[in-house]
């Protein structure tokens, strides 16, 4: 009993001292990983602009498709999940997180059939992003439109 109390107390104290440190570490990791993804994205855009002479807008669109492709493929191959548990928001907040949520939902529910499994659940996680994005864009768009002025 005494030993249990002691180990409990020890754990409490250890937790108190550990939590802020791991939070700081998480934040730094998220910053570095997210920043690296941003850097890669901008690098892809500049390479495309340099070698194919396409406009910056088109290069940005192709860059997003490339990022989605990489994220989907690495989710399907199974190592993106491990990276997400390590890097958390660094990978979830960029568009890679959106692609990851769709591919992992599709893979998980595949065995429940093509309609009520894959089809019904592919937007299970990404659906909320789309729903609230559209509601917000509609709401703010209406306000912006009614205020008037040059859009």
């Amino acid at each position, binding site marked *: 009993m005494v030993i249990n109390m002691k180990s409990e107390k020890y754990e409490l104290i250890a937790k108190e001292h550990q939590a802020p440190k791991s*939070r700081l570490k*998480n*934040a730094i990791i*998220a*910053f*570095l*990983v*997210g*920043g690296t993804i*941003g*850097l890669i*994205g*901008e*690098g*892809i855009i*500049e390479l495309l602009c340099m070698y194919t002479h396409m406009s910056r807008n088109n290069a*940005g*669109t192709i*860059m*997003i*498709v490339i*990022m*989605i492709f990489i994220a*989907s*493929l690495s*989710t*399907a191959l*199974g190592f993106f999940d491990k990276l997400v548990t390590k890097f*958390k*928001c*660094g990978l*979830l*907040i*960029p*568009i890679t997180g*959106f*692609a990851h949520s*769709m*591919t992992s939902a*599709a*893979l998980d529910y595949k*065995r429940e059939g093509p309609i009520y499994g*894959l089809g019904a659940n*592919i937007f299970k*996680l990404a659906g*909320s*992003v789309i729903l*609230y*994005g*559209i509601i*917000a*864009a*509609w709401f*703010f*768009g*209406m*306000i*912006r*439109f009614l205020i008037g002025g040059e*859009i």
Partner: protein
Amino acid sequence: MLLINSFLFCGFVCLVAQIILDNTKLTPGHVTSMFVVFGAFLDSFSFYDKIIKVVGGGALLPITSFGHSLIHGALAKANEYGILGILMGMFDLTATGITAAIIFSFIFALIFKPKN
């Protein structure tokens, strides 16, 4: 210069998300939804467009840019066709990302087997 700005901006957005995630009870789903709404809010007065001009590709990648492109397409169509344009142009810019994500995830789900 755009490369450094991309690193800093994309990193900063992820940093804010991680801080929210660690210090509240919200899940990643809550945080991404919040960020999309926030992106749409920022672009209702074209503020996000200015960020993209300064930052470049780093501003296109975070999920805030999804909200931005939704409202940006809607307002661009609204400029042409009036209030109905908000409904018409909603997916104009995001269509590429959503369609690509659907196609890739469907094909990969057919090819690969789920791993635990």
